[in-house]
């Protein structure tokens, strides 16, 4: 309850400060969507060369991409910590966070909220709706709560992984380029993982479970494939909870090692 009302307060303050710079706001939305658009065009180009990708049709892969955009947009809204090491550790702003009575990770994420990312989620829903029509799929009412549950699981996976990776800055003075690397790896999870080698497939499913953010949960709504990825779909929330718990643990342990900035 407290955290919900805090969320609302921070959101109001975000609105007050950021909406005054309207142009800035729309440019951010536009550049976000442009980035996603390029990815989508890439998929379309691939399918000009081939009919199917590991047994998946164009409309199906586009649907998966649409699904992926929903948790990704939510994740981007709440987790905008790309400058964490610099701002909170090198400049010592973590001091301020740690002397306030709310969980420190929660405060940090709220302070850096980025609601424009949420537009990506809306576009994702739109893409799914369009490919749904193209694929001629049936629609059950319980797909809606199921979609919400799987999305929640996917968001938790992202949150957990990036929380753990961001927490590296507590352990190392100069965090390496691991975040951009990860940002590239995550993209593999949007394509049918059976097109990769067994090792990469294993890594994407069980080590850095990016497959659980795109292809696996999305396959739940599509026609069954021969390797039946959909059977794993219902594990998405469980994987989400586990990954998030690990991320939180790494973070909380890291905070104990925080040294502050000299002053």
């Amino acid at each position, binding site marked *: 309850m407290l955290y919900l009302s805090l969320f609302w307060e921070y959101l109001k303050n975000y609105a007050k400060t950021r909406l005054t710079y309207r142009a800035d706001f729309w440019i951010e939305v536009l550049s976000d969507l442009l980035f996603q658009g390029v990815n989508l065009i890439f998929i379309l180009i691939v399918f000009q060369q081939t009919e199917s990708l590991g047994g998946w049709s164009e409309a199906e892969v586009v649907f998966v991409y649409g699904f992926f955009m929903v948790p990704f947009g939510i994740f981007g809204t709440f987790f905008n910590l790309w400058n964490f090491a610099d701002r909170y550790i090198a400049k010592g702003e973590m001091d301020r966070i740690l*002397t306030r009575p709310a969980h420190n990770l929660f405060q940090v994420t709220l302070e850096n909220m980025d609601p424009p990312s949420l537009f990506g989620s809306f576009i994702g829903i739109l893409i799914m709706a369009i490919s749904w029509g193209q694929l001629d799929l049936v629609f059950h009412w319980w797909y809606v709560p199921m979609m919400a549950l799987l999305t929640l699981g996917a968001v938790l996976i992202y949150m957990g992984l990036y929380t753990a990776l961001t927490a590296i800055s507590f352990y190392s003075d100069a965090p390496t380029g691991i975040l951009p690397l990860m940002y590239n790896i995550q993209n593999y999870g949007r394509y049918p993982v059976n097109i990769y080698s067994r090792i990469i497939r294993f890594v994407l499913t069980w080590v850095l479970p990016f497959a659980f953010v795109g292809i696996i949960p999305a396959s739940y709504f599509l026609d069954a494939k021969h390797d039946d990825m959909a059977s794993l779909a219902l594990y998405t929330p469980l994987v989400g909870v586990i990954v998030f718990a690990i991320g939180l643990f790494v973070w909380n342990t890291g905070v104990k090692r925080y040294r502050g900035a000299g*002053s």
Partner: protein
Amino acid sequence: MSRLAIDVQDLRKQFKVQNNRAGLGGALKDLFKREYREVTAVKDITFQIPQGEICGYIGENGAGKSTTIKMLTGILVPTSGQLRVNGFVPHKEREKFVKEIGVVFGQRSQLWWDIGVIESFQLLRKVYRVPEADFRRRLDELVERLQLGELLNRPVRKLSLGQRMRCELVASLLHNPSILFLDEPTIGLDIIVKTEIREFLKGMNKEHGTTILLTTHDLQDIEALCSRVIMLDDGRIIYDGGLEDLKSRWSKGREIKFQFGSAVTTDRLRTLTEGLTGVSWTLENGVEAAMWLPNEINVSDALARVVGSSVDIRDIKIMETNTDEIVRAIYQSGSAETKAAAAAALEDDTAISGAARS
């Protein structure tokens, strides 16, 4: 017996610092094998602060003041030792603990840069879960005392340093904390704001019984506020006690200023105090002179000599020893060893006087 606000036992903090070797070759070596050395910022310090006390925490830059404050406020985890503040172990029960303390770091803002001051306060009200009615009452009181009225709607980035610092104080007190930690609260402020802040802190302490621990480089803060001083040097406590004690222990003598009715000469004055070893005179102008006398000599003895003579005295002023000078003398008294020796000598002193008393 009053409860202890802060109880510190053998508190120690070590940092691992990377040794950077010089030059390109060194950088390459560092890439493969790093060398670390342990730096002990705070070396087994022990002290207690009862509730309602204002305690000054002083020392040179790098003496370990900020590190101690950060451990006391739960930001840093101590390497060893026991620590209880308000009955909590700060870094363990952080979120519960920080609800009852207020923190102001002079060098760093606690407020949100872009939003209006009042909005920052509202956000803090939510974070600290202060009921609306309490918040209103408290805010009104603080705003009136620090005269913030017209500042409340401005964004923090448009405030002057003095205005910002007053807002920081309000922000740290909105939830009515029982302990207030101030890390250099008056740094960079002009004398008027400094005085205002000192008066305000004194009032808070008197009316609400707020315990205050402050670090400062401005000894006038200490003189104005603190009944007690803890002095830190190189991670160790070299003095813990009253300000008056500090003065009398470390000062070597006093100064008495005279104003005479007619011109005098140094020779004439010297003959007056002949036989009193250590007494010296400096003539400031024809009719004003200062006499310096070591602690071993009674003020009354020396005064009697001068007053009893035939010189015409218009005014006498006994000068208090200035804390600034004393502290500077301690800082400058050479290496840490001599300071430690001096501190040890002091302890012997107290041991002897203690023994004599019993």
